[in-house]
């Protein structure tokens, strides 16, 4: 998200504008008014007496509201503006509204014309990323004092309705208010914009469903206050940590997304602006990260993904029975199946993460009912591992898209085409088996075994899973280990050759527990070594690799979420000092982003940059980065559930001072955790 953009949002409805509050036509940048994965306004431009305005200030005090302080004309020294225009924008009730206030500071009466230009390209959010021509028909009409912007393609029909609360001149390209103001008086008017996903019988498609009704500002406000109240309270001497924690809770609240299927149980959406919807991987990872703080997200995510579980083979969607989805969209390309997004299953890790999350959720919540309820889906997921994911029949989880045209080449979290490479830069052939997938599979089997024994009452199945896990660990430590480098290969290629790049993925292996004890030290040393550790965290790819690029999406940038799992992994293997070091640097980086960690930032050496360098098109907020701060806090405090007890085993670096986390929810009710910074001992 650009530096000078102001976003507000509620679920998958959001507005992104510049600091003046305006939206300029920009086919490739995600500015405008969006709902249901569609851009309902691509032009939204305010002028006063024909003149554009300038922002004195713009801010977003709550995630659903933004305010802009504007004056006409360009700022010139000593020329005082005689007019102030305030623009307050609030999202809610299926659209947004703007309250415009004009104040005349002059000592004489002034005639004003306030005009808003409006236009809509009705682009699918996916099209904005990819650019493709539109085939439908545009119309713009004025009816009963409402400006209707309209797009139709066959029976697919979308409308933006723009209305006002007082007399205005409305034409096909916007509307204008004309009025006269006496000295030192003000005028106020309200403009409403509503997105209509026109259904088969007129009206909004969504209104025929028993979905959650759109919420107004008061509800949103109250809801946010309650959300913050329910979460554990953090007290700390270290301000950056406090700030990051509070920011994360607010962002997580903002990113909650009410799905059509379970409107009352929101799941975490992935990130603004690209990923405001259902994304399996991000929803699960962030639920996992947030478990000790807001456990309800995990239950909602598991239920939703279970109901959408793959049930057949569909090459277009990379769907297979038992598979958990990657992405679900509602835009035009999804409607016409030009893209496999309704839903898309092209991920090899989502199914494994589903099992891991189910177990972790039970360990915190004690909610065996959900484990029982989702037994069929969990079993189907386990079956998928052996029946569909093991493409080479050798016991590993592999991936290769069934959809050569639109499918993702890499179906692990590092999705970009160049993410998986050899040290010399070559890209491996397909299928591919990345190392962390094997770690997740190992972990998923062990965790499922625990659930089988405890809840499903199937000891034989549990034994079988444990045996498979043990075999997998053995095999993995043989096939993936690169002796001369002292680390695990990033992946195996289609010929079972090692893809030998040094990457952050080895950190996830620690988290999964698939790393042999004797090799853990070497892995930890690599993670904190100069090739991977930038000083602001662990890079996705070592800076010695041919494809290393400090501003490469998955080939050199630092991902806070990745780092949080690495911190957790380091602690799992007892590397407390290393865990503390990585966590500290990520929190330090957060300071430069006002406590809000972006999706990714540059992998430049810390010695070279005073600040972490932002990655240009990173989503912010991004839910896994939001969750990263929570998971790091959990890892630093060493919070682990053991049966009905919450164990606290802190490894807090000295500079963090005292940390108290009060009211941690779980099967034990609420518990507090106290810790004091001290030199961590491994």
């Amino acid at each position, binding site marked *: 998200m650009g530096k000078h953009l102001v976003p507000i949002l509620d679920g998958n409805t959001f507005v992104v504008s510049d600091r003046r509050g305006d939206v300029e036509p920009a086919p490739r940048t995600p500015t405008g008014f969006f709902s249901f994965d569609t851009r309902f306004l691509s032009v939204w431009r305010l002028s006063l007496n024909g003149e554009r305005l300038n922002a004195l200030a713009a*801010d977003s*005090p709550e995630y659903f509201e933004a305010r802009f302080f504007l004056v006409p004309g360009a700022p010139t020294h000593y020329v*005082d503006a005689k007019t102030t225009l305030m623009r307050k924008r609030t999202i809610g009730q299926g659209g947004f509204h703007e309250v415009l206030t004009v104040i005349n500071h002059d000592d004489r009466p002034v005639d004003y014309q306030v005009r808003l230009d409006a236009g809509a390209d009705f682009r699918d959010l996916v099209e904005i990323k990819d650019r493709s021509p539109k085939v439908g028909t545009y119309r713009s009409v004025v009816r009963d004092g409402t400006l209707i912007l309209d797009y139709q393609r066959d029976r697919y029909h979308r409308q933006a309705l723009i209305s006002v609360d007082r007399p205005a001149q409305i034409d096909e390209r916007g509307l204008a208010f004309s009025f006269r103001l006496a000295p030192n008086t003000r005028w106020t008017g309200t403009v409403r914009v509503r997105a209509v996903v026109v259904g088969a019988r007129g009206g909004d498609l969504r209104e025929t469903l028993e979905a959650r009704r759109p919420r107004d500002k008061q509800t949103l406000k109250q809801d946010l206050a309650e959300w913050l109240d329910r979460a554990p309270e953090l007290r700390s001497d270290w301000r950056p940590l406090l700030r990051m924690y509070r920011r994360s809770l607010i962002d997580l609240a903002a990113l909650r997304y009410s799905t059509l299927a379970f409107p009352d149980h929101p799941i975490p959406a992935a990130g603004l602006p690209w990923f405001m919807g259902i994304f399996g991987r991000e929803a699960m990872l962030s639920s996992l990260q947030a478990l000790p703080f807001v456990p309800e997200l995990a239950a909602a995510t598991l239920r939703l993904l279970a109901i959408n579980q793959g049930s057949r083979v569909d090459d277009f969607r990379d769907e297979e029975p038992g598979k958990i989805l990657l992405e679900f969209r509602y835009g035009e390309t999804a409607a016409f199946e030009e893209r496999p997004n309704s839903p898309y299953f092209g991920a090899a890790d989502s199914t494994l993460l589903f099992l891991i999350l189910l177990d972790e959720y039970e360990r915190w919540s004690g909610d065996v009912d959900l484990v029982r309820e989702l037994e069929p889906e969990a079993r189907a997921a386990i079956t998928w591992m052996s029946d569909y994911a093991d493409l080479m029949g050798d016991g590993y989880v592999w991936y290769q898209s069934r959809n050569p045209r639109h499918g993702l080449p890499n179906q692990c979290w590092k999705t970009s085409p160049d993410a998986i490479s050899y040290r010399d830069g070559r890209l491996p052939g397909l299928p591919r088996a990345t190392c962390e997938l094997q770690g997740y599979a190992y972990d998923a089997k062990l965790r499922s075994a625990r659930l089988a024994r405890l809840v499903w009452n199937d000891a034989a199945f549990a034994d079988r899973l444990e045996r498979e896990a043990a075999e997998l660990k053995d095999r993995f430590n043989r096939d993936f280990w690169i002796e001369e480098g002292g680390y695990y290969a990033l992946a195996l290629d289609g010929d079972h050759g090692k893809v030998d790049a040094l990457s952050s993925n080895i950190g996830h292996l620690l988290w999964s527990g698939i790393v042999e004890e004797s090799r853990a030290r070497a892995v930890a040393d690599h993670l904190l070594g100069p090739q991977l550790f930038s000083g602001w965290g662990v890079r996705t790819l070592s800076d010695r690799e041919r494809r290393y*690029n400090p501003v490469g999406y998955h080939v050199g940038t630092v991902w806070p979420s990745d780092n949080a799992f690495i911190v957790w992994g380091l602690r799992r293997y007892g590397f407390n000092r290393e865990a503390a070091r990585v966590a500290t640097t990520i929190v330090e980086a957060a300071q430069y982003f006002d406590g809000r960690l972006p999706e990714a930032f540059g992998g430049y050496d810390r010695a070279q940059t005073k600040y972490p360098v932002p990655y*240009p*098109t990173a989503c912010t907020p991004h839910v896994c980065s939001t969750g990263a701060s929570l998971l790091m806090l959990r890892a630093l405090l060493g919070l682990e559930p053991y049966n009905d007890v919450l164990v606290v085993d802190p490894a807090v670096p000295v500079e963090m001072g005292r940390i108290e986390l009060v009211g941690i929810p779980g099967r034990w009710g609420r518990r507090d955790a106290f810790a004091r910074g001290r030199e961590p001992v491994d």
Partner: protein
Amino acid sequence: MSDELGVVKILDGNTFVVSDDRGDVEATPSSPTGLFALDTRFLSRWVLTIDGQRLNSLSVDDLNYFETRFFLVPGEAAYYVDAKVSVIRERSIVGSFAETLTVLNHAEVPVDLEIRIEAGSDFADLFEIKDEAIDKKGDYYAEVQDGHLRMGYQRGTFRRETVVSTTEPATVEVGGLTFTVHIPANDKWTAEIHVKSLAVGPGGRDLRMGLRAGGARGRDQMQRELEEWIESAPSLNCESEPLQTAYRRSLVDLAALRYSPIALPGQYLPAAGLPWFMTMFGRDSVFTSLQTLPFVPSLSATTLRILAALQGTRIDDFRDEDPGRILHEFRYGETAAFEDQPHSPYFGTVDATPLFVILLDEYERWSGDTALVHELEKETRAALNWMYEYADLAGNGYLWYERRNLKNGLENQCWKDSWDSLSYSDGRLPGYPRATCESQGYMYDAKVRAARLARLVWNDPAFADRLEAEAAALKERFNRDFWVEEGEYYALGIDPDGGQYDVLTSNIGHLLWSGIVDAARAPKIAEHLVGPRLYSGWGVRTMAVGEARYNPIGYHVGTIWPFDNSFIAWGLRRYGFVEESAMVADGMIDAAEFFQGRLPEAFGGYDRELTKYPVQYPTACSPQAWSTGTPMLLLRTMLGLEPHEGHLAVEPALPEDMGRIELLDIPGRWGRVDAFARGRIEVRKKVFSTAELT
């Protein structure tokens, strides 16, 4: 230094660069971007391209006030498309302007690139930019000489040149430098580019060469100096993060704004503000020195010396100069050189002279430096003499002003110097001459303080007695002539015939600071200052809501000036209004938080309830010296620091939410002492709404 709009500034004294967040300069006649020195723009175009493509900024490191670093990538940021090349553009101003370009090739294959810097200069005078009127009378020239690009401007014997050179092989032509480079895979390329700004004097040498002692400072030296500067200031430990941040920010900005005049190399006084006012201003320098005296006393001594050295000696209508008068502004640009503008120096200020006297006394009270008081006795007497010999234009014992330079002298010679800042409550503008209330306060204070110096240092008790008698008479007269009966406040000013500018303004706060207010009337003044018409919730407005000319974003008719508020807080404390003083201080520190600790010159007078955050005034200078000094004076005021005969008294009146404060190693005649305080004053956070008033 970078602000919200992506403007990046680095500076060293009055040499500075203002660019966009890519490091590029594309100046238009009215936008103050470019490389500036001696009030002249030496680069108005400085654009980096790679293969003809502009770059995009990923981030900007503001390393120090004199250096910065840009992280750039070519082309527009597009989703999932990683840049294969990135650029680190490092820039510093240490004597001259230098840039180091590092181009990194992240690709697995070698690349061939054409890296180009476009360079151009319009040699505009800062004043021409400010007035948006560049009308050059001289001739431009440009040539390539020994691989250097030399751009010049000549008007008679006035000559300014910009010379661009580089360490790497390049094609140098008029208009720019082009590097054709081959960078192997995963490798990088580096070049240094130097830009020299020359004020060409007789014989082709730079004018400054003969004057500057020791030549330009090196980068390391500047770094060291900055560290020493910060170390030698008192250290602050406090629970209020905004205050802590603002204090630190102020120290660094103050270091950046230090300005060594050509006449006194190696000594520093505060320049007024970036970008318009990187030069010496009498009023700004004195106010800033007063604010910072407990923290960095050396600025005061230099300010006093340089202002004394440049004191007016004769009558010169063009410069509004009189004997004994302290200057307003000193410039070096083309308009000053050709006397298109009267700024070399210009004397059109009514208050710098009494403020000079006030600073001298305050400085002695802190430093015990009687030697300087001796040294400046003649100038101080001349200043006092100026007040009744030249400034009493109406012959009634007040300080008046009326410009003699009708073409481009200043209409208003008080701190609120915009054309419409003085008015009656119905909006009419008064005639001339004009006498503003706060000037009378300053004069009163100057006389009282000078009496102390006369008795203590100059050994002239008769003079002291006379000054005290005059001061007492002035106070009595003032309380009679300026008091607005029905409003119960002091008029902003008066006409020669006694008519009052009956608007309610922040100026009454300065009267408390000066001590000219009758004790019986002080409570009413305090009430006005924190009442709904003047107090916005963030601070005291320059003009009260309800006045005809009130405009929340009017430069001097409704905005809030942090510096103004710091003196108001000081004044409130002087008269014992501890709660009101704490309230003003508290609001200002709250506001500072929204500006990352750097208070701007002014911000909007909107109600705090309406805006929830302070709205910055459109083109306010930032950093600006007396805004930079504001947190320091507020700190002094909250801690109640006052020197008493060789001792430092600490009498805190701290808002509750400031928590604990320790200010350690406060320098002065006592050596170094510490001050401790705990927030005990409950500040009324409830803010008023003036919605009904408008």
